[in-house]
């Protein structure tokens, strides 16, 4: 078994000429939280879609927990232990919060009460207990993002892929969400998260990978990454001053 829960090798996808992810190599260690950052259109979500089976790579491999899962369909990959959220949240709008999370809970039981128990526990973990019986479509954006996480968590993943769960939240909500993600990570679930909110990413992740035009241009600790001239040029640009100072 390899040292990493997730190992991506030369991962590439070509959308009719546009190489959205280009020869990407990266790892997530067991129990680690890794950040994936990069400018808009850098290929971050595409990378998630390759890992989670939504797209089949043009080239390259995805190794999860020592097993080659390249090209498997999304539901199989989830069953193997990878949960994900969607950047554009996908709540089951006309179902309640509880029912939404129970869908995930059914991943490991066909018993309704057991699934409900799993769901209730997860709902508490993400802080949605006061909205248990609310319809998902009535939730605020912050709560919808919590719901995304809760649904994925209910499937009991070993690795959680979070696609911009902090985007669009106000500072208080970001703080709460950061604590939630840290808690999830502490409970032993490895995390790979896409984020634009840099401070928050740095608060959670000790390792960051930077993508630009589909290519990895840097990786390392938050300090290494933010001091990397390549990153400053390609991604941070003018914002760099603001972030560091």
């Amino acid at each position: 078994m390899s040292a990493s829960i997730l190992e991506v090798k030369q991962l590439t996808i070509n959308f009719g000429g546009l190489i959205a992810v280009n020869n990407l190599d990266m790892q997530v260690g067991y129990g680690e939280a890794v950040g994936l950052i990069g400018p808009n259109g850098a290929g971050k979500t595409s990378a998630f879609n390759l890992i989670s089976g939504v797209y089949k790579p043009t080239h390259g491999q995805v190794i999860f927990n020592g097993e080659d899962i390249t090209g498997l369909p999304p539901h199989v990959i989830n069953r193997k232990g990878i949960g994900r959220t969607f950047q554009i949240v996908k709540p089951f709008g006309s179902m309640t919060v509880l029912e939404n999370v129970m869908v995930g809970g059914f991943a490991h039981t066909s018993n309704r009460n057991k699934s409900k128990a799993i769901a209730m526990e997860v709902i508490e973990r993400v802080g949605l207990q006061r909205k248990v019986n609310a319809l998902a479509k009535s939730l605020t954006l912050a709560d919808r993002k919590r719901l995304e996480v809760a649904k994925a968590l209910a499937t009991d993943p070993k690795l959680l892929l979070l696609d911009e769960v902090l985007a669009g939240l106000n500072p208080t909500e970001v703080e709460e969400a950061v604590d939630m993600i840290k808690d999830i990570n502490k409970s032993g679930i490895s995390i790979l998260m896409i984020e634009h909110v840099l401070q928050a990413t740095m608060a959670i992740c000790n390792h960051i990978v930077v993508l630009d035009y589909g290519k990895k241009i840097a990786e390392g600790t938050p300090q290494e990454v933010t001091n990397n001239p390549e990153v400053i040029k390609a991604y941070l640009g003018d914002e760099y001053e603001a972030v560091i100072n």
Partner: protein
Amino acid sequence: MDIVQKKKIGLIVIILAIALSIPLFVTKPYYIHVITMCLLWAYLASSWNLFCGFAGQLSLGHGIFTAVGAYVTIMLFNDFNISPWIGMFAGGAAAVLLSTLIGYPTFKLRGAYYALATVAIGSGVMVLIENTMTLGPFHVGGAEGLIVRLMGNAPAYLQFMSKVPYYYLALAMLVIVVVFSYWLKNSRLGFYLSALKEDEDAAAALGINVRNAKLVAAAYSAFFTAIGGVFYAMLIRYLEPMAIAGPMMSNEMVFLAVVGGSGTVFGPVVGGITLHAISEVIQFYFSDMAQGLHLFIYGLIVVFVIMFKPQGIIDILQKYYNRFLGISDRGEDESSVS
């Protein structure tokens, strides 16, 4: 047992008591026949709903399942003297096979492929039956149709002289499909169908094998629909390809379920009974005035309900039901009519 629970059980008992005693008050065979047809349509709409309503898939060709169920059963009975009580399971199995053959390639695709496939195959099957006189040892009858061999009063062969046993049979079938719907809706598969109805990608990301979930639900739906076709054949005692397999049959199931409230357990029942009763009444009063006038009026009613109550008649009833139980319209009690 709390008060809400007691009220629910009380309501079920009252409805069942009324349903069971109807033949005591309604004695004219014609009226019993009309009421039986209302129950049958409620049953068929519920059967369609098992897959199409719960999973949000549009089948415009469920008539193929009534047809396959009925033809297989009647051919086995006419030519091999196999009782329809047994033959109906062969008919149901044939429908399941057909449903899987249609679903396997189309459920893999996104969009309207399934709906288009059901329309195409629906008309194909009807034309096929119309042009088939015999099939191996079986007499099919072509466009003339197939007459059910009469045996007088023969309960063992699903034939009765009186209309009353048919009424009770239809009632029993309706109760079974409602109980099954309720079970399905609250089972793991029911949750999966609700989820994939809203977003297939989100469903797959939670470990749901979307195609398998659809295939299983479609198979249930096809089986129940086929049994409805068998009942129809035994009640009418005559199979006409246009009536059992045609677009009228297919569309009617959709109308009734949607008007009642598709995707809910009781919506198709309410839609089937009320809308079919209305259609019988307007047919009675208007069909003499001008050819097809009753169909026009019927169509207007369908459009009207869909425009003003897209969630179906059940949505109105749900409010009264909640008030009766003394619970708020949203929240508290998670058990609801739908």
